[in-house]
């Protein structure tokens, strides 16, 4: 029996949930783009994995008229040539592909592991945070001892900056999507036992050094260029964007990271970071990239199940801590 609902003219079609497969919504985004969405608006990395599975399948399908795809957290934007590929045919193709990847458990997602050196609580981010306090907000509660990292500790119920650093290094960071600015990654912890969260700056910070790394909500981002920003900073890494393509890592384009990459922080001192950054620009540094391994979703989900009690315990600790901390 058809549901009685107000007509949604932005929705082209839907595919109801079946078994473990989430419902799919296909939306118009003009005559050249289609937006596909999985499930409800919740943050669930398995949705993101499924997006990559679909992206892979769509690209391999060789459908004529497909121009490009933009995978994101639970959605994928698809650009297509609607004069060659009618919307109906694209939607039918996408629906068929859902049947070929019926279970996210069966997915193996091609994923690179990239080790990036990180100077935590470094002097460059410290300098811009100090400028923020001086010129933008003197009483910013998220700046303690001239940095954000102590605030991140308190907001999450962690003992001190050292424990924050331990948490950040204890998990790989899954790059769910790239966007907003060229090369800017949106990364989430693969090990939820170390999923720290923070509120954002208020007002935003007019300055952030290139290579700075920060966290907003559950998401970690690396700033590809010096820019304003709103995330709580915890350190600085090496360039992930180089217009001049001075290092072999930037040979094909100036952008290092791709969606579905996994990033691991490796702690270094300010001095060591400075030296590596010079080697990057001299072209002699070799980025530590393990070219395509794959992430097996089935074993990952098994892992998630096994750590559930620990995750719940940390979330309780966070919930208690938040009550004691001022929001910016």
């Amino acid at each position, binding site marked *: 029996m058809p549901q009685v609902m107000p007509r*949604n003219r932005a929705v082209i079609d839907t595919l109801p949930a079946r078994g473990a497969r989430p419902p799919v919504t296909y939306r118009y*985004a003009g005559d050249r*783009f289609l937006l596909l969405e999985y499930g409800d608006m919740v943050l669930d990395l398995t949705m993101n994995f499924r997006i990559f599975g679909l992206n892979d399948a769509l690209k391999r399908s060789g459908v004529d008229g497909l121009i490009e795809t*933009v995978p994101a957290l639970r959605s994928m934007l698809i650009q297509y040539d609607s004069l060659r590929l009618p919307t109906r045919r694209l939607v039918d193709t996408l629906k068929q592909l859902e049947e070929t990847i019926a279970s996210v458990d069966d997915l193996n997602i091609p994923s690179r592991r990239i080790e990036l050196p990180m100077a935590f609580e470094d002097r460059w981010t410290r300098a811009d945070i100090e400028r923020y306090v001086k010129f933008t907000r003197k009483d910013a509660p998220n700046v303690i001892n001239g940095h954000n990292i102590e605030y991140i500790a308190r907001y999450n119920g962690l003992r001190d900056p050292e424990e924050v650093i331990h948490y950040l290094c204890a998990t790989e960071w899954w790059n769910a999507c790239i966007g*907003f600015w*060229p090369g800017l990654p949106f990364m989430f912890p693969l090990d939820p036992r170390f999923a720290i969260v923070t509120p954002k700056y208020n007002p935003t910070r007019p300055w952030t050094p290139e290579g700075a790394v920060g966290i907003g909500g559950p998401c970690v981002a690396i700033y590809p260029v010096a820019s304003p920003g709103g995330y709580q900073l915890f350190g600085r890494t090496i360039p992930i964007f180089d217009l001049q393509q001075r290092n072999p890592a930037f040979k094909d*384009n100036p*952008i290092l990271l791709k969606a579905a990459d996994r990033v691991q922080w490796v702690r270094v001192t300010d001095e060591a970071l400075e030296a590596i950054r010079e080697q990057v620009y001299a072209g002699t540094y070799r980025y530590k990239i393990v070219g395509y391994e794959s992430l097996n979703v089935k074993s990952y989900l098994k892992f998630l199940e096994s750590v559930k009690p620990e995750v719940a315990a940390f979330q309780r600790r966070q919930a208690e801590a938040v009550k004691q901390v001022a929001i910016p």
Partner: protein
Amino acid sequence: MLEVLEGGIQTTVQDFPGRVGYLDLGTYPAGPMDHFAFRTANLLVGNAQGAAALEVMVGGLKARFHDRRALALTGADTQATLNGTPLPLWESVAVKAGDLLEMKMLKGAGFRSYVAVSGAFDVPEYMGSRATFTVGGFGGFEGRALKKGDQVRLNPGGTGDTQVGRRLRTNLRPQYGTHSEIEAMRGPQADPDYMTPDDMAFFFSHTWKVDRNSNRMGIRLESHKWQWARTSGGIAGGHPSNILDNGYAVWTVNVCGDQPIILVADGPSLGGFICNATLVSASTWKVGQLVPGRDTIRFKEVTMDEAVQMAQTLDTTISERSIERG
């Protein structure tokens, strides 16, 4: 070679359709703000429609030619002259070494003009395109707008002798005005799930003023008190315009809090605000001619079928059959 004597307000090298295929790396396509005038300028001088040409915002470009070429000027009227003699728009003319092109102040409606030269401008391809991406500072001529002293190379050959005296039929030339009707499709995030039907009715009937802070990243419209179909964005944020970050279609209407912004050539590729409507490909060119702080627009809703038909008609219009000689 084109020797730049004055760069004007913002003159950039662009190509069409721009840097396509890098949205998943966070890079919007750049390219011309008005692809109708851009493609037509190239067509008039016998270039491929997407070839590298100049986008001149507001005017002020002063440049000397060092080669014999065909030249076409399209788009807004900047009262341009060649060696002091008024230059026609939408028509190709001959230029020779030493000739001086001067684009002055805008006259009447419209905001951007295009300069195409037979053989096209020779700037390096960067990530598959010659378009200038102003935000990232790459592509085009050294990743920036042209300025005094720049020497922009032209591709060899292409004297353009046979491409002189070509005109776009008069009845096909766009008539820019201070108010434009711009065709758009509802979605991806519209009613009834994100906005109310009343919100969308307002969106498609209101006369929107183009904010003075509009540029190649976004065309800002005025804020409005939307009713919203939701009370908050849930996990994505406190405001009902917040969603979990998703890719933004190029030329979509992004509602940031209460303010709608049309995301254009150099916009952000992804973000966490709803987009309640998206311009159709055959209408986006009109946006390039909007004068910030002055012009008004109304969005006219069209269906997918109508949009496809419009795209076909536009491709037919920008073709050899629309060119007359004389």
